[in-house]
């Protein structure tokens, strides 16, 4: 389950940054991707919400420290959704 989410998240990153060569892992942070500024963050958040059909709570996406935490949160919401 974790791997599927990572693959999907990576695809979103590649679309948003228009860069097919991007590879992310649990430790990736905004300092690892040059164009990942606050504006790109909004694009990522909305794209992820649409892709997984979930909603981040107000401010939730802003406290994530790395991609790993992002994936954990997505997984939690995604599973909750299917119930």
């Amino acid at each position, binding site marked *: 389950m974790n791997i599927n989410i990572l693959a999907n998240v990576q695809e*979103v990153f590649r*679309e*948003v*940054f*228009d860069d097919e060569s991007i590879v992310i892992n649990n430790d990736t942070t905004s300092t690892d991707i040059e164009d990942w500024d606050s*504006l790109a963050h*909004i*694009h990522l958040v*909305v*794209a992820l919400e*649409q892709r997984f059909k979930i909603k981040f709570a*107000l*401010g939730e996406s*802003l406290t994530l420290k790395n991609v790993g935490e992002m994936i954990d949160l997505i997984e939690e919401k995604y599973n909750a959704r299917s119930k």
Partner: protein
Amino acid sequence: MQYPFDSALIMRKQRSIKRSLLEKGPFIEKKIAILGGSTTADVKNVLELFLLKNGIKPFFYESEYNRYYEDGMFENAELKSFNPDFIFIHTSTVNIINYPDINDTDATVEQKLESEFSKYKGLWEQLKATYNCTILQNNFELPHYRILGNLDSSDLRGYSNFIMNLNSRFAEYARKTKGFYINDIHYLSAQIGLSNWYDRSFWHAYKYALSYEAIPVLAHNLANIIKAILGKSKKCLVLDLDNTLWGGVIGDDGLSSIQIGKETPVAEAYTEFQEYVLKLKKRGILLAVCSKNDLTNAKDGFSHPDSVLSVNDFVSFKANWEPKHINISQIASDINIGIDSLVFIDDNPVERKIVIDNLPYVLVPEINVNEVYSYMNTLDKDGCFEPISISQDDLIRNQAYQENSQRNSFKDHFISYDDFLSSLDMNAEIKEFIPIYLERITQLTNKSNQFNLTTKRYTLSEIEAVANNPNYITLYGRLADKFGDNGVVSVVIGEVKGNIIHINAWLMSCRVLKRGMEQAMFDEIVRQAQKQGITIIKGYYYKTAKNSMVAELYKVLGFELIHTSGEDTVWEYPIDSNYVNQNKFIVVNKNY
């Protein structure tokens, strides 16, 4: 990027969309200052995409967060040196400061309304005085809650009522002010629904005054206004007939069986579409037919008693069995407008594809034959015919084109072209710019592509400046003949430096090509130049993809070629007192 667009996709893939749009030139460059009352980042980014798609490459100035008032009102060296062509004020309902309070009297509410409006008006006047460029201003969307319920719209203390009154004042200012346009978000928010326009979490988290989904809707609308101002709106609607203007196939079903009128829901839907098309025609859009039918059958469809349109409503009528892209190409050349000014509506996806593949500059919207309503809806929401004003010229345009067809068939009766010209009884008014024609003159500088020597575009402010500048000789040309009045059809702008006049702009509507108007304008340039002791006229030709018809104009008028740079040329004409008028058939400035 064409209506209906996928907002989420555009936002997500904005970088790759931008990359691929940038590969498709050519672009005209424009500077746009965005003064925001809320976050503007993606509004700017998506606006850029829609502008690039329309051949406009924007350079932006963006105010700091919510500093639209300070940035616009007070001294701003950065904005001054940016020297914008457009200033877009992105304010919304979030920026309204003093809403009515439930305890306010009518007089207090009126005062608050006046004060809110004056703040904006003051800003607009200051911007005009300092930057003298086009201003684009959002009006206000309705609020997302109604404290007074339905009374919110009628009670003076209701926010909805307050906003509608404010919008009314904005509209009045727009009616009276040149170079000022409303970006109607009041309409857009209603169209996609207030529930979709607003996103409170998006506001609280990122201070966007509209939702993610609404951003492309606003940007698309704003881009349509900008492209209209730059003369890039479409001019002609080409229509198929069977299952497009009526239900059924007239060749097979016969006149009595086609569906038009009020008898059935399908007939009503087509009638509504014909009514929509007729209204477009009335405000200046040219109509043409391109149908696979025998000509008599095709025309017959309009003799149906319930037909809203008639054959006379069309300036070109092609009904034959030739491929449609060939017909459409011919339509453009018959009525003398660029192929990129056409929109083609056809219910048949195969026909649409042939045109899309062969004529990439024609706009061919995707419509759904199962939903006749989609024909009108797609045309309307796409905004391809966005006007910036409705001029007298627009109202008589179709008539003018009809008159032109009459002239053309009249021509066939003459043996010599000179006899034909002489029989037209042409008269022209060629004088320096006057206020009443400045908007039309501006429109011409932006729309003329073929008979245009330098393709220099002007905004209304620039035309006003040139008209008031004693170092310029300006001429407009208005041509009439026994068939009708063509209105203002030609513009010349010359800059005087010492004893030389440099023709910076010379353009003419293709409607009046080869009537001698070119010669008549030149005679007047010479006359004005002689009055001012000018001895040399310098002409410039800058080649574009569309203006090869005037490459040799200066040579024909008697100029000498003095310089060539690639395909651009510079010409010189020494004026002497023995100049003989070259125009032989037009009576100039006698009736006015």
